[in-house]
């Protein structure tokens, strides 16, 4: 892996992630529209939104930490992309395993939390407190699932995990080997996206979109970009863990869009959970499923 | 040279009776005669000690041979205690000049004479006589402070020690009926056949409880808190520090020389454990300085009893180390208690008033609790290793109780330290806060220096104690020195 190739990969992977991420955002809004019998936004709508937000003349900032927060949010995910192996490009996946990836995905939420903290708006602080509690809620099943997969594959290196799954074609996929873990992983992934049933921390009615209350212009644009990255990373991570990664680009994208479509269609049919109910739900079903799944892995 | 050993008992005895007469003629001479006698006594012992004291020697009083006459058995252990008596007598000399100081000084001389006798005498009945003499002297001194509480305490102590001495007499009578002799060496020879039966054991137990009154043994030490709280601190220091150790020495001699039955050791162990538990926990509740020190000395002596209960003399070094350590620390603490006597709450913030007193208190508590470089730790270490070597569960129980007691001890001693260093309550004026001063502070710092000295040169002191212990354990040596003619008779 020569240096120049690696450099190209490090630049290309985030770009691909951004583009695919925007497609995923579009798919999400189209699914929502179709469920509500609406036509839904035009094809390039996410791009328009981002360009418009970045081009706004007023960029209200509450201080240096507010700016750094948004930069950390975007930067964290850009770094996380390079650890996610995609067909043809492995980036620096073997330099840091799956645990490092999970931690890198926590950096944006901490960066955002710092930025929102400086906005000095209680709505934002309440939103962040709920977001971190939600993170505590969905991270536990996620960690059980990751433990199960890593222990089954015997390594934390994502490339090897994918290699193990692709060895026997469909039978050796994570989902077929460990179905319970796959389901638990799906629920945990859905909660980590922070979409409809689990979006207590963006709750527009109660706390005026929580953390994003003081985010205008390029700050909101940065969060929209982060949302694209978030959708991409979560779905690709799920694909790598359970659906055997992508042999070629077409089936890789098909799998990740399908994986994302399931929670999206569930999302827009349910009202919002309260924080305690979110915790209770997340610590009851996915954790039970996960532990039983891990028990099977041990057997 | 050995003959003048008798002087160290005779002279104070003589002085005790002559003093009131001398007092009438001229005050000056009378005041200084007491300390002079004591200094002369110390000089004799020191001279004997320094002139190379290899073998123990037996002094027959009045020229009569041992089985009939009374002899003084002087080995390094006895000499150490005798020297301690003379020295502490001097240190705790009641210098206060009031109208009955003559009575107080003569009683003090009497007490010193009796104690030296207890340390040296080799005859059982002689021990009993000196024991009674010491008891009487203590009654006199304890009630000297004249307060109502002192009288009540002395009365209770009188009754208790009276019954105790009756029991001791019963025990001695039993022994005499069995063996026909009262000389310890002789008894040691006859003991294996005659006294190793249940009758012998009863005799020993009777003597144990009788003398136990003075040695603050568990059930019979109820007099301790009252006497120490009401008597003058100098007397209670002398009593707690030394007299209880001498009574203990008698029991030790009996245990080593005559009674080797395991039941005896077990009784002492059980009573020792109960003593430790009751002493330490009662001290935890104590709200008043002297009472707390009294309970703490009960606990410490309980520990020494546990050490004594170790089979075939393994605990000898521990007993010696613990008793000497307790002697120094308790006397120092009592000296501090002279000014800090009252309720503990009153002491709040007095560290600022008398920083040296507070530092000394912390030093003594640290050594009592067993902070490593200080001697207390080494004494505890020796006891702990011996206790852990035993197999029976009772000894392990003793070990556990000993450790827990140290924890309780640390917490109540350092609660006092915390109040000392705490900030004084707002309303107390600065001069109301008690300050340690004058002679008592001087003696306390003397003891503090002693503790630090022992801590620094712990190695030589350790070897010295080991030599003394070894010599004390050697029963045959005892018999041969006392009655060379009759040697070879014993086991």
């Amino acid at each position: 892996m020569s240096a120049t190739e690696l450099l190209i990969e490090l630049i290309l992977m985030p770009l691909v992630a951004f583009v695919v991420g925007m497609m995923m955002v579009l798919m999400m809004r189209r699914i929502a529209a179709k469920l509500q019998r609406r036509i839904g936004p035009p094809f390039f709508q996410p791009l328009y939104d981002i360009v418009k937000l970045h081009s706004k003349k007023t960029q209200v900032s509450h201080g240096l930490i507010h700016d750094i927060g948004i930069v950390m949010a975007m930067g964290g995910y850009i770094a996380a992309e390079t650890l996610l192996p995609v067909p043809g490009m492995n980036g620096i996946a073997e330099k840091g395993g799956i645990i490092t990836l999970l931690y890198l995905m926590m950096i944006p939420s901490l960066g955002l939390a710092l930025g929102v903290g400086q906005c000095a708006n209680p709505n934002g602080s309440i939103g962040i407190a709920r977001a971190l509690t939600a993170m505590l809620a969905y991270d536990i099943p996620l960690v059980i699932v990751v433990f199960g997969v890593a222990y089954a594959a015997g390594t934390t290196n994502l490339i090897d995990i994918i290699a193990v799954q692709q060895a026997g074609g469909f039978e050796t996929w994570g989902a077929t080997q460990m179905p319970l873990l796959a389901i638990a992983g799906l629920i945990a992934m859905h909660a980590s996206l922070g979409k409809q049933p689990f979006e207590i921390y963006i709750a527009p009615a109660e706390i005026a979109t929580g953390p994003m209350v003081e985010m205008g212009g390029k700050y909101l644009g940065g969060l929209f970009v982060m949302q694209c990255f978030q959708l991409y990373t979560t779905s690709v991570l799920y694909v790598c863990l359970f659906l055997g990664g992508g042999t070629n680009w077409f089936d890789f994208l098909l799998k990740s869009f399908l994986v994302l479509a399931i929670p999206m269609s569930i999302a827009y049919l349910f009202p919002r959970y309260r924080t305690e109910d979110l915790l209770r739900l997340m610590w009851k079903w996915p954790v039970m499923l996960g532990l039983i799944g891990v028990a099977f892995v041990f057997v | 040279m050995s003959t003048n050993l008798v002087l160290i008992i005779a002279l104070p005895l003589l002085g005790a009776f002559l003093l009131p007469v001398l007092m009438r003629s001229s005050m000056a001479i009378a005041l200084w005669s007491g300390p002079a006698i004591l200094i002369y006594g110390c000089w004799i012992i020191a001279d004997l000690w320094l002139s190379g004291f290899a073998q123990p020697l037996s002094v027959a009083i009045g020229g009569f041979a041992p089985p009939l006459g009374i002899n003084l058995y002087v080995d390094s252990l006895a000499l150490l205690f005798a020297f301690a008596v003379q020295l502490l007598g001097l240190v705790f000399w009641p210098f206060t000049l009031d109208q009955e100081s003559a009575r107080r000084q003569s009683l003090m001389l009497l007490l010193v004479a009796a104690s030296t006798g207890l340390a040296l005498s080799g005859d059982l009945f002689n021990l009993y006589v000196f024991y009674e003499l010491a008891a009487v002297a203590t009654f006199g001194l304890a009630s000297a402070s004249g307060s109502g509480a002192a009288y009540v305490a002395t009365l209770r102590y009188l009754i208790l020690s009276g019954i105790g001495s009756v029991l001791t007499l019963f025990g001695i009578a039993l022994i005499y009926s069995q063996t026909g002799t009262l000389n310890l060496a002789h008894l040691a020879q006859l003991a294996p056949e005659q006294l190793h039966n249940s009758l012998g054991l009863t005799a020993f137990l009777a003597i144990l409880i009788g003398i136990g009154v003075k040695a603050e043994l568990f059930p019979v030490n109820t007099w301790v808190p009252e006497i120490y709280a009401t008597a003058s601190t100098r007397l209670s220091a002398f009593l707690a520090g030394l007299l209880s150790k001498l009574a203990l020495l008698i029991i030790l001699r009996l245990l080593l020389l005559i009674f080797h039955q395991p039941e005896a050791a077990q009784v002492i162990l059980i009573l020792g454990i109960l003593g430790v538990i009751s002493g330490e926990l009662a001290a935890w509740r104590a709200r008043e300085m002297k009472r707390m020190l009294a309970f703490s000395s009960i606990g410490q002596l309980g520990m020494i009893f546990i050490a004594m209960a170790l089979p075939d003399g393994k605990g000898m070094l521990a007993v010696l180390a613990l008793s000497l350590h307790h002697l120094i620390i308790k006397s120092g603490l009592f000296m501090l208690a002279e000014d800090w006597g009252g309720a503990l709450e009153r002491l709040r913030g007095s560290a600022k008033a008398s920083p040296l007193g507070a530092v000394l208190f912390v030093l003594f508590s640290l050594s009592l609790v067993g902070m490593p470089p200080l001697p207390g730790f080494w004494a505890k270490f020796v006891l702990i290793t011996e206790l852990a070597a035993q197999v029976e569960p009772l000894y392990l129980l003793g070990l556990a109780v000993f450790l827990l007691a140290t924890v309780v001890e640390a917490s109540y001693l350092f609660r006092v330290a915390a109040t000392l260093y705490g900030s004084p309550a707002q309303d107390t004026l600065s001069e109301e806060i008690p300050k340690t001063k004058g002679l008592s502070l001087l003696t306390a710092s003397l003891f503090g220096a002693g503790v630090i000295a022992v801590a620094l040169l712990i190695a030589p002191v350790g070897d010295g104690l080991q030599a003394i212990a070894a010599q004390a354990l050697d029963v045959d040596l005892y018999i041969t020195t006392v009655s060379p003619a009759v040697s070879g008779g014993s086991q």
Partner: protein
Amino acid sequence: MMLTLLDELLLFSGATLLVALFIGRGLAAGWMVTILYGGQLLALLKMAVLGYEGGTIASSLTLEVMGQALSWRFDALSWFFALITIGSALLSSWFSCGAWERSYIRQGGNIWLFHTAMALNVFTMLILLASGDLLSLFIGWELVSWAGFLLMALAGGVAARAAMRYITYAMAGGMAIFGGLALIYTASGSLQLEAVTTAVEQMSGAKLWLLVILFGGGFGVKMGLMPFHLWQAPAYAETPGPGSAFLGAISSRMGLFAILLVLVKLFGIVKIESLKVPFTLIDARDLLAWIAVFTIILPTFTAMKQNDARHLLAWHGIGQGGYMLLGVVVADAMGGAGGLLHVFNHATYQAALFMAVTAVIYRTGTSDLNKLGGLVVRMPLSFVVLLIGIIGLAGLPPMNGFVSKWLVYRSLLNQGMPLLFLAAVIGTLGTILSVYKLIHNIFLGQLRVEHEHVSEAPWSMMIPMLILSAIIFITGLMPGIPLEWIASVLQTVGLPVPDYTLGGVESSSGSLDMIWVIGVLFAGFGVGALVFYSAGRSKRVHQLDNYAGGHFLSADVRYQYSDNFYAGLMHLIGGWYRGSFLWLERGITSLVEFLSLGMQGLYRRANAEFYLLTTALFVIAWVVI
């Protein structure tokens, strides 16, 4: 007798103590003591060969007391811990000189006593670390616990009460160790390390169990393991500023040093693993692991409820101690390295956090989280130090905390312990939540009117904090540096050694290279900044120009959310850990109270003679039967 390097170090430390003791009055005393600590560090670095190749340096002083031989020597393990001790002492005393010292004196503190206590603590810790055999270990242990008591009881009032509680726990622990020592002495005849290891070989199950419980319990008290952790938080929080930084960094890790020396080196993990808990399938190692894991979770969630910054950090100190023990107890290559690296990392960021909080107290006069807010605009450097500290404490990538936690997780993963892995992660998440509460309530949100004219902490306090944050970042970037020392420590203790590189750890089943990860992270930040700053210039607005649902904000309205920070979470799990073993402590104290009441009653009896006769009759009857 020739002065070995170890003698030099101990003499130097003794000299510092004497200097502090005798000329500690003047204001220059603080600087002098700091320079002497620097000297001690140089003396220690001269012995750096221990850290890299291992081996031991013996002290020329040997004592022969009461038939016990006492010797002192340094090996890689003690060198590693000594490095952390002297490092944190140097920085803490540097922090205490200058401005903080003046304010401490103005508030009536006794600065001479403070410097002496710190010097005494360092000196006693060095003696403990240099212990050559079990007896010198115990002596060092007692000295350290008493020196700790002095430093904690310094501030009087609440601190004195916390120190009293500490000393009761420490004495209980000390006596447990003393009992264990005695048992070993009888079994092996002497307290030298070699003799003890041979004796332990053929030790039977029950006796070894007793030893493990006694030693584990005794050392666990100092480390603040689960049942005995109640004393640590108030004691460390109430000590004056730099004192709490020093204590929080290293003091409770002495327990881990002793556990490493006794349980791991002498007994050996494999021996401990052989001890089975009757009719359950877990063995002693699992028991220790589960105690460590509970020590991680419960204190972390208690920390979340604290309203005082110092108490929050002190509770975290206990929680992180659990990670170290967990790493050491799992005892595979990654676990041991993880546990020990966590000792180093925790020392750095705990000291930095305590110093930052002390700087805030120095400037605003309070550490109550509900009375602060928005200080980032007035104390930016302290904010940076606290931020780097909390990233380290939470164990997130750029900082060193992440590397040691990653190692512990990998070892749990390799050994296949899902429940322990899960519990450790719950601990980490709990830490992330409560550290965000710390930084949000102090530095973010609305600035209070009375804090408008607060300025940055003075340079004498700021430099040590910045040095510590630099260390945190550098050891995060290149964990190879501390891992090298830890490799030789693992060899001396007898645990497997991972093959480390400068950037992290190389292994077949997934490796970590922090230089790459952090490089990519900062590249990502660069790209993010590029995108962010290419769009229009941002305009700063006043904190009252804020969305409030159409309400006109004014300065007298406190528009800040800080009380009951995680309401949702607390609503669900608030009731579970009310006092976390407070009931155990209260139970014991009331038992002792009750017993002592009984005993005192015994002595008040009037008819003492009745006792005398009954005992006499009882004894005689017993003899006759």
